[in-house]
């Protein structure tokens, strides 16, 4: 326990430094350049020198990758104008320089609402830029394992990528738990029932349903290994791939009836063919990996 470095515990910069080859990270638009948000000060909110994301070039197992790491503690990792522009710039440069992969260490609540339309536009530009990189055959690999998860527009961004690696502590969704509770009531979704939140948005669930590709322990070494294994995982979007995805989603929608006895997630896993679905929440990552239906 003491030797494992928790991915969730690390700051974005720590994670980044530990995942890439030691000392290989070269940062673009570093903090000293003070490319900060043009919006936050007038709201009385402090800025961050890097607007909450570090971007640059690094080596991963000796191969060149571009990498971005979002700091979940700053504004919940929300994407603002500058933050988004840094991500877009990184992705556009990838089109030009053609690294072996683009790594996105995502931890974000989505659009930084303080920046309103500028944030929304930024996220949509990130989506477009990411899809361009993917189409060019450069794998975009998203790592999700921070305490804040990957939500909102960034959740959508993640699902546009070639590959998603999650720890069981990570979460991936569009709407956040509090938003679901506020919209549909506490009986429908109690956001304080954290076990429920993780059953519906956590890494194990996403892995079993196929929404993420790789499930790892909350361990930077495990994330590094998964990133290395993803270096050749390019899967450009084709019509076939899209149609297969639609078929899968349509089938999944049919799997659950209107109301289930007991927990929805457990019911869904069972119907997807996961053996002993009720025990999933207690199992460790190795055991859950073995349960994924093929």
């Amino acid at each position, binding site marked *: 326990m003491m030797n494992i470095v928790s991915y969730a515990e690390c*700051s974005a*910069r720590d994670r980044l430094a530990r995942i890439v080859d030691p000392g290989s990270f070269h940062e673009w638009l*570093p*903090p*000293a350049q003070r490319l900060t948000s043009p919006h936050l*000060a*007038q*709201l*009385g*909110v*402090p*800025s*961050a*020198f*890097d607007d909450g994301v570090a971007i640059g070039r690094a080596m991963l197992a000796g191969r060149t990758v571009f990498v971005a790491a979002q*700091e979940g*503690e*700053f504004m919940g990792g929300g994407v603002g104008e500058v933050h988004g522009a840094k991500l877009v710039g990184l992705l556009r440069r990838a089109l030009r320089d053609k690294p072996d992969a683009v790594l996105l260490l995502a931890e974000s609540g989505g659009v930084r609402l303080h920046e309103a339309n500028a944030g929304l536009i930024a996220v949509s530009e990130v989506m477009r830029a990411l899809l361009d990189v993917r189409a060019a055959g450069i794998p975009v690999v998203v790592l999700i394992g921070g305490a804040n998860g990957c939500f909102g527009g960034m959740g959508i961004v993640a699902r546009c990528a070639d590959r998603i690696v999650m720890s069981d502590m990570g979460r991936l969704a569009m709407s956040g738990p509090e938003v679901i509770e506020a919209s549909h009531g506490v009986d429908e979704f109690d956001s304080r029932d954290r076990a429920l939140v993780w059953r519906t948005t956590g890494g194990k669930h996403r892995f079993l349903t196929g929404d993420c590709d790789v499930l790892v322990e909350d361990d930077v070494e495990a994330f590094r290994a998964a990133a290395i294994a993803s270096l050749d995982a390019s899967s450009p979007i084709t019509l076939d791939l899209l149609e297969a995805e639609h078929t899968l989603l349509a089938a999944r929608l049919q799997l659950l009836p209107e109301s289930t006895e007991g927990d929805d997630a457990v019911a869904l896993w069972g119907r997807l063919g996961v053996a002993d679905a009720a025990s999933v929440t207690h199992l460790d990552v190795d055991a859950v990996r073995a349960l994924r239906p093929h």
Partner: protein
Amino acid sequence: MSDISPGLETLDYSFTGQRPAGAFAPVLVGVVGSGNLEVLLEPASGTDCTIHIETSARGFGPIWEAVARDFHQRHPLAGLHVSINDMGATPAVVSLRLDQAISELP
């Protein structure tokens, strides 16, 4: 304790340093989260140690001044610029981050 007008509070302090900080690549420690702060150290010309603070916790000038003075007493560096983005960290955390930043200087 803090006044009601909106916006960040900006504070600046300057001390005459003794030991030159020398040349170094900028050092960043900390994260701007609730109760937290980030500290950026950069080399500067001259013999001063200057500290620039932007904080959302308004009205604590005298405490910042005491913290800054004690910091300089511990590390009387010259030719150093310290920049801080703060979101309500306690003086204990501020002092800790400043010392952490200094410990990363070559």
